[in-house]
């Protein structure tokens, strides 16, 4: 026996490692609310480096762009250059003001819709290293009041929900992830269904009976039934409908630009009160 184990020690080690992870998988399948220690360690280790990398790359890009701008300006006529610089300066100032105004307008709109819910603006600092995983990290965490299952959104539509919270960062699960599910309804008819992620760029709207009238281009909104997302917020637009056995097979394109998120808003409030605190307004269906 000993000689056998000695001869096949590599294979034995593989079996031990796989068995240990198998037990670990079985243990994790139980429902849980707290963050696992190993996730906390990994996120604590990676988050500061991700933030640093983000800062260094952005700074380098800004420096490079400044250098390119300067190099181009020097080659121009002195008079035109002075004029151009003034125009550029003005343009940048206006663009900055416009961007700030857009951001404030979006924030204001959300504030008006949910007057009692504090909104937290957060910056996207990195994505998951697992290929295909639809998650990303934001730069706000437990120390800023972020909790699990808080809704994450942009002014265009919902983005996802917080799945793990760390001291200074949090992980967001996108609505396109296969593990994601959102209570939904059609804006035009208020027929309710569930939007599930596909692991790709589109979502699937399920449980819409074949008897119901649906059409490409219809808007899909949150129903609030999942007690995660506020009612009446845009999820996306129907882009494809195929006949199924009992239900329509519907694909939905998310309203939010999930592939180029830079800033998001976190609804920092008790989830089950959001539907009650939404103020009436033209955006509400």
């Amino acid at each position, binding site marked *: 026996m000993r000689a056998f184990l000695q001869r096949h020690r590599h294979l034995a080690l*593989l079996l031990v490692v796989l068995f240990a992870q198998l037990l670990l*998988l079985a243990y994790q399948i139980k429902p849980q609310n707290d963050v696992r220690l*190993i*996730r906390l360690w990994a996120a604590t280790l990676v988050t500061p480096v991700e933030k640093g990398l983000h800062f260094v790359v952005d700074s380098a890009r800004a420096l490079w762009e400044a250098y390119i701008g300067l190099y181009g300006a020097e080659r121009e006529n002195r008079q035109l250059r002075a004029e151009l610089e003034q125009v550029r300066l003005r343009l940048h100032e206006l663009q900055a003001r416009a961007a700030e105004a857009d951001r404030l307008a979006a924030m204001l709109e959300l504030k008006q819709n949910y007057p009692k819910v504090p909104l937290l603006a957060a910056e996207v*600092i990195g994505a998951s290293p697992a*290929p295909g*995983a639809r998650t990303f990290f934001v730069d706000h965490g437990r120390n800023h009041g972020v909790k699990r299952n808080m809704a994450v959104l942009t002014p265009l539509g919902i983005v996802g929900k917080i799945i793990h919270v760390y001291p200074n960062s949090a992980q967001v699960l996108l609505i396109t992830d296969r593990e994601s599910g959102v209570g939904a309804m059609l804006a035009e008819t208020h027929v309710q269904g569930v939007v599930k992620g596909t692991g790709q760029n589109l979502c699937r709207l399920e449980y819409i009976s074949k008897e119901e009238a649906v059409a490409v281009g219809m808007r899909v909104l949150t129903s609030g039934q999942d007690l995660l997302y506020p009612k009446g917020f845009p999820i996306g637009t129907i882009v494809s409908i195929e006949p199924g056995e009992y239900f329509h097979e519907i694909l939905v394109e998310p309203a939010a630009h999930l592939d180029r998120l830079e800033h998001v808003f976190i609804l920092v409030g008790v989830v089950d009160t959001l539907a009650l605190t939404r103020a009436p307004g033209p955006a509400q269906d």
Partner: protein
Amino acid sequence: MTYEPRTEVYRFPLAGLIGSVVLAILLQAYLAKHLVSVALLDLPLLVVIYFGLTRRNPSSTLLLGLLVGVFQDALSPNLIGQYGMAKSVIGFATASVSVRLDVERPPARLLLVFFFYFLHQFAYVGIEQLLLGRSGTFFGLNMLEAALVNALLGVLVFHVLDRFRQPA
């Protein structure tokens, strides 16, 4: 162009090994934020395959695969152990194969990475389907594309990593 003998065993400074793993995971996470196409790549897998092919020690490489996989799981919505198990198998398999094959030539490396990418996906999807009862696809055109991209990138990455190794 000359190649090393097929049975040569190499070692890496510990800092180089840890640096390669951490760099692969950070790069994967950082690029995934900016480039959608990065979802095709699996840089941590390439690192595990490389160390399996060069160190030729199944035990140490399967433990490396375990650590890399668990680290990936911890930074993703996966259950801890999904990538851990898949990459443990890859670490063991690559080191076992490297003892019997000449893995120094780029064409051989291309084919091996191509094959091990599929084996990794097969193991990962198998774990999802058999153990977790989730749906998944064992084979698809996008997987073929991803295997090819990883194989081509693997040849380049391995060439770079070769510069840091020393004969044991």
